[in-house]
Structure formats: C-alpha cells, structure tokens
C-alpha cells in the first residue's frame, strides 16, 4: 500500500500539473485523441452497419470482421504501423481505428437488425418513406445497441491509447512509459491510476447515455435496459 501512497503523492504534486509536461495536458491529449478515433469510427461504422442491418446484405462480412478483429493484437498493429508510417500520430490513429471499427459496425448492424421486421413492415404499410422508417423507427429502436457498440469501442480506444505512447509520446501512456524507463514506480502507478479513472468515468457516462436511449426505445420499461435484463 506504500506504493499507492507514493503514487497518490505523485498525482497530487503540483509540479506534475504545471509546465509543458503537465498531467492536465496529457489527459486532454488522451481524451482528444480517443474522441477523434471514436468519431471517425462512428462516421464510418454507423452508416455502414445501419445499411447492412437495414438491407440484410453483408451479414457474413460483419461476423467475420468482428470475430477476426478480436484476435488481432493491437500492440502488433501499433508497432507494425509505427515501422511503416514512422513516429507520429498516424500509426496509433490507424491501429486504434482498426480496433474501434468492429464494435461500432457490429453494434449498428445488430441494433438495426434486432428491430422487429413486423414493426418496420407496418411502418412501410402505413406510408412512411424509407428515410422516415430509418430515422423514426429503426434508429431510435436500435439506439441502445448502437450506443453499446460505441461504448465498447470508446473503452477499448481509451484503454489502448495508453499503448500509443510506446511509439509516439502522447497521452496518459507517457508517464507510464517514462516511469518504466527510469524505474520511477510512483509515476508509473500514478499514470495507471489516472487512465483507469478516466476509463471508468467514460464507462459511467456511456452507461447513463445508454440507459437514456433504452428508455426512449422501450419507454414502458423504466427499470433496467433490455441488454441488462435477466428473468431468473
């Protein structure tokens, strides 16, 4: 526990929150970089997944991509892209995008696909346009699952963005790796605690957003969202 005390002391040391190496800067880098990756993944993955879920074409590809992607070691991608693209933000951006796309894609696909076909058929029968069906029926009903996909993408990206510091000095991985190099355990542990807290914070935010979306999709059920309900 002594180690933790040292880590907390390190975290509370005002010197670590000032100057060009200020922790606040690292946190902003970490969040900003992760947010860009997730936004790009969402911009590609949500339309693509929605389209596949809406038309039902390309299911096999989704299953193969999401299954295969889980086996791909991100550190491997990060280092190989690092060798090919050089030191900078491009390599981690690409590696993290590869990591973030499958859950977003799968979430959008599974969400739209899980919408009852009879409901969609009924909406069409009473004269909703395809666009109105998509925006007014499929997306709101799929929203909890789509947000679930974004949530797991965001978590993985925040978590793995720590590794980005291994090849480009950015984000909260920096204190961890410099601590590792210089045997400064308090710095390593302090950085680790910070990333863990950040990840938990993001997770909690997404939980709130997801249950809000679930309340909209299943308004009569005010307790637990569908994804978390168990009838024992």
């Amino acid at each position, binding site marked *: 526990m002594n180690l933790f005390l040292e880590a907390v002391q390190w975290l509370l040391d005002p010197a670590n929150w000032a100057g060009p190496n200020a922790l606040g800067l690292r946190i902003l880098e970490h969040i900003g970089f992760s947010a860009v990756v997730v936004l790009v993944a969402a911009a590609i993955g949500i339309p693509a997944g929605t389209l596949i879920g809406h038309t039902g074409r390309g299911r096999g590809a989704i299953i193969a991509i999401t299954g295969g992607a889980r086996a791909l070691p991100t550190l491997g991608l990060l280092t190989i892209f690092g060798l090919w693209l050089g030191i900078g933000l491009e390599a981690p951006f690409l590696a993290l995008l590869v990591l973030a796309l499958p859950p977003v894609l799968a979430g959008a696909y599974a969400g739209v696909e899980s919408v*009852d076909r*009879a*409901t969609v*058929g*009924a*909406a*069409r*029968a*009473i*004269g*909703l*346009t395809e666009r*109105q069906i998509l925006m007014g*029926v499929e997306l*709101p*009903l799929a929203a909890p699952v789509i947000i679930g996909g974004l949530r797991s993408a965001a978590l993985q990206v925040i978590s793995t963005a720590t590794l980005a510091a291994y090849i480009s000095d950015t984000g909260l991985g920096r204190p961890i790796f410099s601590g590792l190099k210089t045997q400064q355990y308090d710095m390593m542990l302090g950085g680790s605690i910070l990333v863990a807290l950040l990840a938990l914070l993001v997770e909690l935010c997404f939980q709130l957003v997801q249950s809000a979306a679930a309340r*909209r*999709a*299943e*308004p*009569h*059920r005010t307790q637990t969202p569908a994804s978390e309900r168990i009838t024992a």
Partner: protein
Amino acid sequence: MIEFDAVRKEYPDGTVAVERFSLAIPSHRVVALVGSSGSGKTTLLRMVNRMVDPTEGSVRIDDVDVRSMDRVRLRRSIGYVLQAGGLLPHRTVADNVATVPVLEGRGRRQARAEALGLLERVGLDTALADRYPAQLSGGQQQRVGVARALAADPNILLMDEPFGAVDPIVRDQLQQEMRALQADIGKTIVFVTHDIDEAFALGDEVVVLRTGAEVAQRGTPAEILANPADEFVASFVGAGTARRTLRIREVDGRDVVVDGDDRPTGVLER
C-alpha cells in the same frame, strides 16, 4: 372500386404466389379473401397499396393504375390494419394513431384531438392515449391498429389477418364492433384471413382461394354455405360437418336449433 386485372406474382426465388387473378371489388363493400397459407391472399392484399408490385397485370383503384401513383402517397391514402396491430413500440398510443396525419402536416395538437376521437370510436378509453403499446392487451392493441388505419380518413381499408392474434372471445367482440363501425363509416374494406368463420362474420362477399390465388368460389357467405362450388370449398367451409348441419328440434313449443351432434346453438325466431 378496386380492380385486380389478371395479376400474377412471381418472387425472385421462383415461387409463384399468384398465378392469374382478376376481381372487381365494388366501393363500400367488405370483401374477404380467404385461403390457407400459400394461397397468395396476403400478396394480393399488398398489391393494393404497392407493398408488392405484380409481375404481370395491374391493380386499379377507381380506374387509376396504382403503378402510376407514388407508393408513399398511395399508402397514406389507404388504411392498413395488421395482425397484432403493428404498432410502433416507442410511441404512445395517441402518437401511433396520429402518425400519418402528422406526416401529412397536420398540427400536433389537432392530430392528437382527432386521435382521441378515433380511440373512442373504436371503443377505447382515452385514458390509454399516453400509454405505450406494450402496456395494452392484445385486443386493445388491435383496436389502436384500427384507429390508426382510420386516422387519415381513407376510402379503403386493407386488413391482414386483422384479429388473428387475439383469443376467440375478444375476436368475436372485435368482429361485432367492426361490423357496427362499418355500418357507420361505409369504407371499402378488403381483408385476408385463413379463418372462414371470420370471413363469414365480416364479409359482404367472400372469395375462397386455392394455392396460387386461384378463385375456388366467390359469393355471399350464405351462397357459399348453401352451394359450395366443389369438394375443396365444401371441406374448407366445413360443409357437412356437425357444426354446419343444423336442424330444428321442438322444445316446449319453441324451435331450438341443434347441430349435427344434437348440441343446441340457438333458438329460431319466426
């Protein structure tokens, strides 16, 4: 008037749902298309609002080929009632009923007021207006489905197995109310069912279909019961079974109608 003119439907996988079908449905009448699964009845119904386009032939409404009309405009001008209501689960009952009027640009407040009127009309308490479909019983959902179909005041109502998802007692009640409603509104109604009793209960005219939407017989319920065209129709309507062969038995000076098994079904009034 709705006219099917030699329509045929072959799906991309090669199955022929409708071989060749012609039928004229006069305005303000209730016509039942009845047949077992595979008879193509639902395909025929869906041709009217262009959920399905025929491979050959045409469907005309008041002499206008539906193909010349925009699908969405056409669908909004026709009421459609689906099995189990087909309601949108994330919208309240009132919003479900008001869907089409709101899409057509009706103000929300007015659409809601009209929706409440329609709910009363189909026998629902307006207190249900702000509930969600899943909070309603099957029969209530079905009524909301009917109210929604009437919301844009269409001339034509299409009903796909309208009361198939509810239990027999509720179904009887819904059928009775539907007859009363129709006496009032006088729409042109086409409905499909596999239940011959439902066809007889609601239809002014009944069209019995064989596989591939071949017309086995067309007539009023009484005509079909009195004179089934062939073996197929006879067995479909259950002619000759105990349920359909009623006799009169005198009990205490009154005529009691009994079925083939001697079970009483009612009293004959002269």
